[in-house]
């Protein structure tokens, strides 16, 4: 908080910055007029000219592709489970503020988030003209998230510490349950990866690559700084080779080559081939981000840990990596965001993720010339996912910051 006398009110500041001189005033007016006409044009197009039927009629296709209709309850169940887990994590985070600084149960940002979530759950299904029953599912899932958030916030303190320590395991467990629900098997009707599509496939490919490239990238970064020459050169070779090749060539290479490398039955499905290529690609970039984090940690940290008797793996796990990964966090999340966007490349090897779905929809003669509507929808969907990643990373950074501003 700066001193009030040092900071004039916003109105005064805007007036002096935008209309300080005749030249500035003229420039401001011209820019305002340009902005105004652009905004008007966009609104006019969006509300009057655009034909949103292309999105409304294909909303299921964009969401899950050709996933069998009678099996879609599995995806709804998974969404509900994810919402409950997210609400639980959110609530517990607030009910257990860090020991060295206070925290409200319902800070202002959380209140804004609740309003936004509720508004989205009401407005989007209505705008998509979904059936009332489906609309009710949106409401139900949002209500579940907020309810669990509220309950975890109020009663989180009473949970025993042992249970809390086990909670991080919930996420990998949920991922496995999710893959089981999506893929089928164990009593559920199998749904082959070829039938997955749209946002579902985009999120599967991105989350798979993000989860697996993380440990791989950390190992590569440690390998690159290792004292063992073979390990070091191997890591350098891998990182530089991957970073020197465009993703699209690697994707095509993966589709064609994995078939030769593995005997027929073992070669994974086309979807999984692409997901593995994405993983190996992202790991090389992540390794460089982690290496930058490792370089930022003073050698005295490892020396102190070693002189307390910790072995090198113990020192890396408890002292060096927690600090290095915190430093690398913003870069890593940047990598994850580009990875999410790179999944659009899967459409070029013929997979029906969001971009591939969009291309088939636009190829339908019934929706000729409706490209702008489709691309705008895609852009908004991607923006939502990336904004969520970015917000999460900033919250995590604040939580992990050992030196609060106070």
């Amino acid at each position, binding site marked *: 908080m700066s001193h009030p006398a040092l900071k004039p009110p916003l109105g005064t500041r805007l007036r002096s910055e935008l209309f300080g001189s005749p030249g500035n005033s003229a420039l401001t007016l011209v820019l305002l007029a340009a902005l105004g006409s652009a905004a008007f044009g966009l609104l006019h197009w969006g509300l009057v000219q655009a034909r949103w039927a292309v999105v409304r009629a294909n909303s299921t296709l964009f969401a899950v592709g050709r996933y069998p209709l009678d099996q879609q309850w599995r995806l709804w169940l998974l969404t509900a489970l994810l919402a409950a887990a997210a609400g639980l994590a959110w609530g517990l985070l607030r009910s257990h503020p860090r*020991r060295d600084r206070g925290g409200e149960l319902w800070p202002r940002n959380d209140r804004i988030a609740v309003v936004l979530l509720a508004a989205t759950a009401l407005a989007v299904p209505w705008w998509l003209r979904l059936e009332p029953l489906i609309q009710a599912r949106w409401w139900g899932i949002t209500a579940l998230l907020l309810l669990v958030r509220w309950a975890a916030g109020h009663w989180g303190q009473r949970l025993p510490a042992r249970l809390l320590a086990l909670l991080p395991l919930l996420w990998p467990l949920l991922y496995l349950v999710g893959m089981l629900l999506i893929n089928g098997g164990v009593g559920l009707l199998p749904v082959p990866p070829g039938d997955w599509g749209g946002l579902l496939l985009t999120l599967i490919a991105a989350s798979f690559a993000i989860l697996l490239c993380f440990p791989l990238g950390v190992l590569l970064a440690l390998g690159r700084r290792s004292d063992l020459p073979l390990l070091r050169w191997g890591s350098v070779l891998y990182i530089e080779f991957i970073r020197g090749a465009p993703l699209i060539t690697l994707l095509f290479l993966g589709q064609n080559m994995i078939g030769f490398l593995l005997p027929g039955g073992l070669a994974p499905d086309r979807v999984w081939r692409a997901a593995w290529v994405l993983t190996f690609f992202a790991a090389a970039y992540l390794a460089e981000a982690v290496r930058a984090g490792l370089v930022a940690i003073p050698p*005295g*940290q490892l020396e102190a*840990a070693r*002189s307390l*008797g*910790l072995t090198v793996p113990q020192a890396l796990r408890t002292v060096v990596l927690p600090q290095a990964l915190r430093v690398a966090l913003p870069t890593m999340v940047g990598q994850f965001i580009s990875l999410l966007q790179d999944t659009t490349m899967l459409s070029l090897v013929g997979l029906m993720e969001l971009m591939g779905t969009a291309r088939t929809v636009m190829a339908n003669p019934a929706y000729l010339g409706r490209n702008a509507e489709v691309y705008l929808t895609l852009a908004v969907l991607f923006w939502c996912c990336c904004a969520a990643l970015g917000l999460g990373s900033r919250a995590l950074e604040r939580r992990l910051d050992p030196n*609060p501003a106070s």
Partner: protein
Amino acid sequence: MSSALHPPTAHRMIEASGVHKWYPNGFHALRGASLSVHRGEVVVIMGPSGSGKSTFIRTFNALEDFQQGTITVDGIALSNDLRQIDAIRREVGMVFQQFNLFPHLTVLENLTLAPVLVRRRDRAEVETQARALLQRVNIAEQADKFPGQLSGGQQQRVAIARSLCMEPKILLFDEPTSALDPEMVREVLEVMQDLARDEGMTMVVVTHEVRFAREVAHRVVLMDHGEVVEEAPPELFFTNPAHQRTRAFLDQIL
């Protein structure tokens, strides 16, 4: 003054003889340095900068390797055997010039990390011990803060408590007060003094603090150009040194 000191015993905790070290760039940092430290003894190492005194004590817990000579710590000869190095490091604590506290852990976690992880002791029991140690270095109320929220003197006292929590047989101090503001030097030296007097801790201290050397050390050692030039009790070292190089050094710092 020295009557308050514990008399050192005959048991040799550190025995270094003829230690040579070359850095990878060819610099000959240690040129046949030798020193023996008995149990309960406080040895202060002084010397001009670049004389190899930090390098020397860092060889005692294998933070630096050496190419010639032998070092035996509490009966275990230092070699390249990693398990032996780990065994020695558990018994030898080290306090650094830059504190090297773990900034992502609270003060209490800094103390409990190694005993729980390395000695596999019960966490609750270690925490009780850690709080008692923090009490002894007069910062019990800071236990739940992070190192970045403490002053330099407080951080160094936490670092000493962190070493003590491993219950080491020997404590090495590498210029523990050089990075501190003058008004914080005293609080750290007092803690070290108490350790020597009340506990009879075996300590090897690299420092420029003459008063500490006079009042606490059993022996003062002068290093120059990678070798031990003079070893004498403090009263002799500061008033009537045998070597010309010691006199030249004392002229500069006194």
